[in-house]
């Protein structure tokens, strides 16, 4: 991989990590504040179902300032970060036509995706 591409890949990885840590912390802290404002005295519903359903429910709840929805959003951001980082690595391998590692990366991403979508209660 050329020096320029490698530097680009590093920069993208660092920004993915920073952005996701920042977003996850922001969502959880806002959730905690809303939880405290409401007196810290309720047990939120534990999410279940497909990830898309959980994400959609979380989005609706965030608009309605429901604390647990903000918690769910923080959790989802953390969950998807390794997958996004992995995808960035696969794209970097594609750019240098390293097809063996593109294939391996796709296999790993498929396994993670099966895990993400196989757990519907």
């Amino acid at each position, binding site marked *: 991989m050329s020096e320029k591409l490698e530097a680009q890949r590093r920069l993208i990885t660092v920004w993915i990590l920073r952005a996701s840590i920042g977003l996850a912390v922001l969502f959880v802290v806002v959730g905690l504040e809303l*939880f405290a404002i409401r007196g810290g*005295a309720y047990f*939120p519903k534990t*999410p279940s179902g497909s990830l898309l359903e959980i994400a959609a429910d979380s989005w609706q709840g965030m608009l309605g300032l429901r604390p647990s929805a903000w918690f769910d959003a923080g*959790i989802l951001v*953390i969950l998807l970060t*390794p*997958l996004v980082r992995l995808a960035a690595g696969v794209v970097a391998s594609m750019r240098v036509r390293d097809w063996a590692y593109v294939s391996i990366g796709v296999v790993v991403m498929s396994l993670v995706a099966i895990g993400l979508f196989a*757990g*519907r209660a």
Partner: protein
Amino acid sequence: MTPLVIVLIALVGGFLGGIIGALTGLGGGIIVVPLLTLVLHMPITEAVGVSLFGVIAISVGAAPRFVGTGLTNLRVALFLQMAASAGALVGALVSHDIPARALFLIFGLVMLYNAVTSFLPSRRSEGLKASSPLAQRLKLAGRYQEGDDWVEYQVGSVLPAFGIMLGAGMLSALLGIGSGVFKVLAMDKLMRLPFKVSTATSNFMIGITAATSAGYYLSHGDVPPLVAAPVVLGTLGGAYLGGHWMKLLPVVTLRRVFAVVLMAVACEMLYKGFVP
């Protein structure tokens, strides 16, 4: 217990898990799961589900330190990750069919193993002069930066390490741990990677392994947000501080002191496994 107290315990537990995990390398899950089961009396499947998110947080939180140093061998990580993720997937799929008592027993044994290895002298493996044929074909050899220089290394025994990753992935999904100790062992002792490379590569892998099974637990309704979110927040903060304190504190002594605590908790977990 009121929701507010649960949030505070989860936050402090995650923070301790992150800080001790970063300082001792023993991983956050080994602290978070006993805390949630023994103190908050959560069902073990929920404790495992929550802990997996703490494991991802530790991996993500520590990752920026390694980027650009060459310490994470992405080719080794991706190749071994096929086995680790496959193991994690199998572990997640069977997790709800395994009795809780069996999980407590396995967890207790893994904790004891972690504690005992903390007292053993760490003998680093010597590097290889040439990579194995399979490692050559996969172009696994690499280099990392040390000061101003780049250190090159070779890679061996790829298939045995691949097999260990399968088991490590399964344990991670069943117990809510990163299984870093097994991953580092395979890379250090079998593949003969430099220790720093093994730990950084393992850190990258534990996040993906945990993500493979964490989604399953979340979709299955085993991740209560009231506990998981504070654990994630606490873990990120703890891992950040722990990473900075590493150079200031006597890490080997800390690791041994903590190993004694670990042994006591392991006994408690084993007791819960033996006595219904």
